[in-house]
């Protein structure tokens, strides 16, 4: 399977680039932290309210952070025109996307796992009882954000005002992810936690639909 082996090599490259500087991870972690604190200043929730609104705010923070984090994903390749070399190196451009979206999902998950304990403390929400389900929702949601975001960052990298453009393209597209993952998380963090399998399945469907679209159109997204 040349697709998978290519992807693995490229993923290694993405991870090495990031872990040499750790720029993206540190800035994203700090960004989410700042947003969460600002949210709690803006609404100063009681513990009942924060059960209701907290997960939504967390997802909003993740969404904003992702729309910033996904910026450099293709811009980084522009400074030395490394994208053309990548295109020449692999037979299927889908593997470039696959590697980038795997790396982005991983970065988002690392950020979220670092943020969760702080979120629990700030908003006074016990997250331990349903942690495994919460991690599943975080994984499926982050995967969806990364798939759509990686595709769109390939588009926005080729336009003017790219820093502003990516959130404008991405955030409306991710409405379904925000609605569903926030609702599922609220139900999970309730006093009587409920696992909404329908929502989890919906997130899976979202990921699958956009992954298929990306697979079909990846060649055109990277056209010179």
């Amino acid at each position, binding site marked *: 399977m040349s697709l998978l082996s290519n992807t693995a090599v490229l993923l290694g490259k993405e991870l090495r680039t990031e872990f040499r500087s750790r720029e993206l991870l540190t800035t994203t972690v700090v960004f989410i932290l700042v947003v969460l604190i600002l949210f709690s200043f803006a609404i100063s929730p009681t513990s009942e309210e924060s059960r209701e609104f907290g997960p939504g705010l967390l997802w909003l923070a993740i969404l904003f952070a992702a729309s910033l984090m996904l910026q450099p994903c293709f811009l980084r390749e522009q400074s030395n025109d490394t994208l053309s070399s990548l295109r020449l190196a692999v037979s299927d451009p889908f593997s470039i996307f696959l590697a980038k979206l795997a790396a982005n999902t991983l970065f988002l998950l690392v950020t979220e796992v670092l943020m969760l304990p702080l979120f629990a403390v700030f908003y006074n929400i016990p997250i331990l009882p349903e942690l495994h389900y919460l991690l599943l929702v975080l994984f499926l949601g982050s995967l969806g954000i990364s798939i*759509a975001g990686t*595709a*769109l960052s390939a*588009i*926005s990298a*080729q*336009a*003017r*005002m790219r820093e502003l*453009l990516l959130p*404008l*393209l991405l955030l*409306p*597209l991710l*409405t*379904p992810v925000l*609605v*569903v993952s926030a*609702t599922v998380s609220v139900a999970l963090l309730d006093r009587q936690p409920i696992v909404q399998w*329908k*929502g989890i399945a*919906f997130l899976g*469907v*979202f990921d699958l*639909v*956009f992954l298929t*679209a990306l697979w079909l*159109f990846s060649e*055109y*997204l990277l*056209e010179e």
Partner: protein
Amino acid sequence: MTKRVILAAVAILLVIASAYASFYIAPTERTMGVIQRIFYFHVASAWAGFSAFLICFVGNLFYVWKRKQQYDWLGVSGAEVGLAFTTVVLITGPIWAHPVWGIWWTWDARLTSTFVLWLLYVSYLLLRTLVEEPDRRALLSSLFGIFAFIDVPLVFGAIRWWRTQHPQPVIMGGPGSGLDPTMKAVFFFSAFAMHVLMVSLIVERYALEKMQTEADFLAREVEVQ
């Protein structure tokens, strides 16, 4: 040219006729009264707008496949005309909702999905203004248009299943549900009129885009010489 003028004239006549029909021929609805008549305009515009976005999607797909600039013209025309109709929907909706529901806006599935749809196509047009080179602009916006269109059913599903707290509102149960035959006839006539208007606008917008491209091409030739 003459064909376009005839089409536009027919569209205008049909819209006037449908306005007459919805005010004077359709019976007044029993509970909502006169305000219900806005529906012949509101729902018909919504249908025409969705059809325009469908045309945009087809244009986008064909552009990516065939790479003919004609498909790009079709894409941008569909998006702009669709956006105009959706704007009408978003304005007439609250005008109806305020006297009937007592509120201007509610986070109902149909309302919210239409609004997200509107936002997506605003982004589509915004993207087009930010890419200079015509071929690149056509390709990138077509790809975004395809992603946006795929997203629409997901947006609708997500909001319908997880955000609508109330049961479906009275009339929104679908225009076919228990409608008076005259109302039904007037409604379908309005929908038809709006579609003719939509097609006429797309034809006009397409011609404009074609002229624009030719003008740009000529301007560049002059620059080169």
